[in-house]
């Protein structure tokens, strides 16, 4: 029986698609009342044994870690699969009051940029590091969209350890893509901008978009051992919008592909202006050749100004370096570097199947999903089957590279992942469903509704050579009636779908933190055994560490007072401090002396204008505090560490400016005051 939706799909000519998009929500409404198998009938979509499939008994561990981006919260959230249990929130581009990230003196440098301190960003795409095309569980790379940055999270500590700003970039959405052995992490700009050729943007008329705006693709080199990043070079590309990136594997592993939209180069009302061309482009870049060109001196150099921030393991302290130049390649100078493949229409996802032969492009406004063939692309390049060029970059003939089109997949194809068993799964934003189709004959074989408006989807390892084809996670933008209402702002949802059989089966949905854009997942046993339990106190090289209670001190240097404090169950040393004056800058350098798993201590003081700090065992963290009035200020541990946690507290006395109360400190019986340094 044909549904209303299917009738509509068939009837809708390409030109009417925009209208359909606009009517998407209304259509969902129709579907619901329609009551067929593709509708929102929750009960029928849920498999009867779903609960047992996602049940992870108390004390048992999940099979997989999944890392979901948080979008506008600038964080990554870690969920166990299949249970959907939230395990951790990792702050990356945002301050996190929970543990003082971005507030503590040690971590502030992580959020420094050429624009100053930028404590927020829009984090879209987590990507796991790779070895031989497979996720290796060492690092997670993520992008900051707004103030273009790429960050690295260390999966032994689940902490952000490095953030690099990208010059010549704006809206770092097309990012990050790690090559199959972490040789490079590649990041493309979403917005093209008028480059001033000094690493920034020029002061030009906005009417000059077509002539002056350009995009850039950054090649970040990754240290094979330590993971440290370094911006090796950039490619300056035509002034389109670059949306997503993904790399080849097997035969295509030297290549990385970028979806583009706004090939019209509209600078205003892009909603219409960037939706005119029937085809935009898939940009194919031979990254190995690019690296070779850059190495062989084809790269030019321009001045730049961007920040590179790194957390040092030994000192537990982040440091910023300002980089002053960047190398770049121009595609027109570098034959064979880059080709454009026409792709309908405003494409979003570009996904290469596990064999490395098929490049699937999901055009948000397209009515079919084009699947390109890598071998045909190679053939077409050899035979020069070009359809003109754009900014000196050859455009390949659509038919010459096309393997097939997946017909009538649904509305608003967005992103495709693979199960390693010859199937592809595409998320359909407008028609709120996941569509399964076969790579063998490009025929749709199954579909399942999702609730609602799915953006990306994720199959663990679904972008690698060997996906773990047991589960699929749909990341939805709208939840409406799925959970108890919480006012105007509702949780977003991730839905776990069983893809082990012929038919997809909904198993579970769980609320997520902020807006999940994309996710990666990895088998737990690749990450869990390497998890750090505590930092070794012996290896703590913090400038103001106190490794034992007798190292604790309070010293004055002008109007700076440094408190070297220790914390251990269940007291702080010192816990009585006097001699601080109004207007002093007080640094509490707190070292957690514990050498046991899961015993952090917190430190908070009344009236602090930043946050608390949460200090992991063996580490040192610093909270800055400027007292504004005289009096006695309590401080305490904020992490329930022991039976005597409530007693883990102390007092600091603040005297008026110029008072003659000497610096003194003690725990228990009073110790002699340390010498004040003038």
């Amino acid at each position: 029986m044909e549904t209303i939706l299917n009738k509509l799909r068939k009837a809708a000519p390409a030109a009417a698609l925009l209208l359909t998009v606009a009517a998407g929500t209304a259509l969902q409404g129709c579907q619901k009342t329609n009551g067929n198998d593709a509708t929102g009938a929750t009960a029928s979509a849920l498999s009867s044994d779903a609960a047992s499939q996602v049940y992870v008994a108390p004390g048992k561990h999940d099979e997989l870690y999944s890392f979901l981006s948080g979008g506008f919260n600038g964080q990554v959230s870690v969920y166990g699969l299949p249970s959907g249990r939230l395990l951790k929130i990792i702050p990356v581009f945002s301050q996190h009051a929970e543990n003082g990230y971005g507030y503590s003196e040690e971590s502030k440098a992580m959020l420094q940029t050429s624009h100053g301190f930028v404590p927020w960003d829009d984090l879209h795409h987590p990507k796991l590091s790779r070895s031989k095309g497979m996720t290796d569980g060492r690092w997670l790379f993520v992008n900051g969209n707004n103030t273009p940055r790429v960050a690295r999270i260390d999966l032994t500590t689940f902490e952000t350890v490095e953030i690099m700003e990208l010059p010549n970039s704006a809206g770092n959405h097309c990012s990050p893509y790690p090559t199959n052995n972490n040789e490079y992490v590649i990041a493309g700009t979403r917005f093209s901008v008028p480059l001033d050729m000094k690493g920034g943007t020029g002061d030009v008329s906005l009417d000059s978009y077509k002539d002056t705006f350009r995009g850039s693709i950054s090649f970040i080199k990754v240290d094979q051992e330590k993971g440290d990043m370094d911006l090796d070079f950039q490619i300056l590309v035509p002034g389109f919008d670059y949306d997503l990136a993904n790399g080849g594997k097997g035969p295509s592993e030297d290549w990385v592909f970028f979806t583009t939209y706004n090939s019209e180069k509209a600078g205003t009302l892009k909603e219409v202006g960037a939706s005119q061309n029937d085809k935009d482009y898939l940009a194919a870049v031979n990254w190995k050749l690019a690296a070779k060109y850059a190495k062989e001196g084809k790269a030019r150099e321009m001045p730049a100004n961007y920040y590179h921030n790194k957390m040092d393991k030994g000192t537990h302290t982040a440091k910023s370096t300002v980089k002053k130049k960047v190398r770049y390649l121009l595609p027109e100078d570098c034959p064979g570097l880059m080709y454009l493949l026409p792709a309908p229409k405003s494409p979003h996802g570009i996904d290469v199947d596990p064999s490395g032969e098929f490049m699937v492009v999901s055009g948000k406004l397209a009515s079919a999903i084009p699947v390109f063939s890598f071998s045909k692309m190679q053939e077409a390049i050899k035979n020069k089957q070009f359809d003109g060029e754009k900014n000196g970059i050859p455009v390949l003939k659509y038919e010459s590279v096309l393997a097939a089109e997946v017909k009538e997949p649904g509305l608003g194809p967005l992103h495709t992942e693979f199960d390693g068993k010859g199937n592809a799964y595409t998320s359909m934003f407008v028609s709120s469903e996941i569509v399964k189709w076969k790579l063998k004959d490009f025929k749709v074989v199954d579909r399942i509704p999702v609730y609602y408006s799915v953006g990306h989807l994720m199959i663990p390892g679904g972008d690698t050579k060997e996906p773990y084809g047991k589960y699929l996670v749909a990341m939805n933008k709208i939840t409406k009636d799925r959970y108890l209402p919480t006012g105007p702002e509702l949780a977003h949802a991730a839905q776990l779908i069983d893809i082990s059989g012929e038919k997809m089966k909904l198993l579970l949905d769980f609320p997520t933190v902020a807006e999940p854009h994309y996710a990666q997942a990895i088998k737990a046993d690749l990450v869990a055994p390497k998890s750090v339990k505590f930092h070794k106190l012996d290896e703590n090289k913090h400038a103001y560490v106190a490794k034992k209670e007798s190292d604790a001190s309070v010293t004055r240097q002008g109007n700076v007072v440094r408190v070297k404090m220790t914390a251990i169950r269940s007291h702080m040393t010192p816990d009585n401090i006097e001699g601080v004056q109004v207007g002093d800058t007080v640094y509490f350098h707190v070292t957690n002396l514990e050498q046991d798993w899961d015993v952090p201590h917190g430190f908070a003081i009344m009236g602090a204008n930043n946050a608390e700090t949460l200090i992991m065992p063996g580490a040192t963290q610093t909270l800055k505090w400027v007292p504004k009035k005289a009096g006695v200020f309590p401080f305490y541990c904020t992490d329930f560490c022991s039976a005597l946690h409530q007693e883990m507290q102390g007092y600091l006395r603040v005297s008026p400016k110029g008072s003659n109360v000497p610096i003194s400190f003690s725990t228990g019986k009073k110790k002699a005051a340390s010498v004040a340094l003038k």
Partner: protein
Amino acid sequence: MKTSSRVLMVVAALSLGLLFLFPMWKIYLKAPQYPEGLEMHIWVNKISGNTESSLQNFNILNHYIGMEPIHAESFKELTIMPYLVIGFIVTGVLVAFIGRRRLVLAWSALLMLGGAVGLLDFYLWLEKFGTNLSPTAPIKVPGMTYVPPLLGSKTLLNFDALSLPGWGSLGVFLAVVISLLIYFLTPKMAKPQEILRPKPTLV
């Protein structure tokens, strides 16, 4: 004494070397919030744990009940005992050279005595640490002491304590058993010539 007995006597003496390779005694603690358990290892010359920081973690727990912190420096025994053990090894080898049955017995008896004194000492310091609690301890349970078992298990508040000899003690056990076997299995009369014959290939 026969050559084989002498060799065995050397083995008995050297088996005491296990004391330097393994702990003599192990105390295991387990509680709901310590699923991984905590182990204290008592060696002939040091106190350690199953991890580098076990001792610190033991002491953190003990401070709630007002127990004195445990450090290797708290025990004079640990500086004396290694020399005693080395003494036993050296004299044991000498006994093997001399080959006198009676000396074997004497060595064995002394070793048993030493072991007994060691055990008693161990018991005394368990007793001392477990009962000598600070009057200002944060947690005071009326009538409660925290003496871990010398051997076997016992419940101390939320902890299950288990105390067992370690592989090091096996050295003492072997030394005693082997030397006693030598004593009882060697014929009473030994030929003096045999004793005087040099045995350069003994070890």
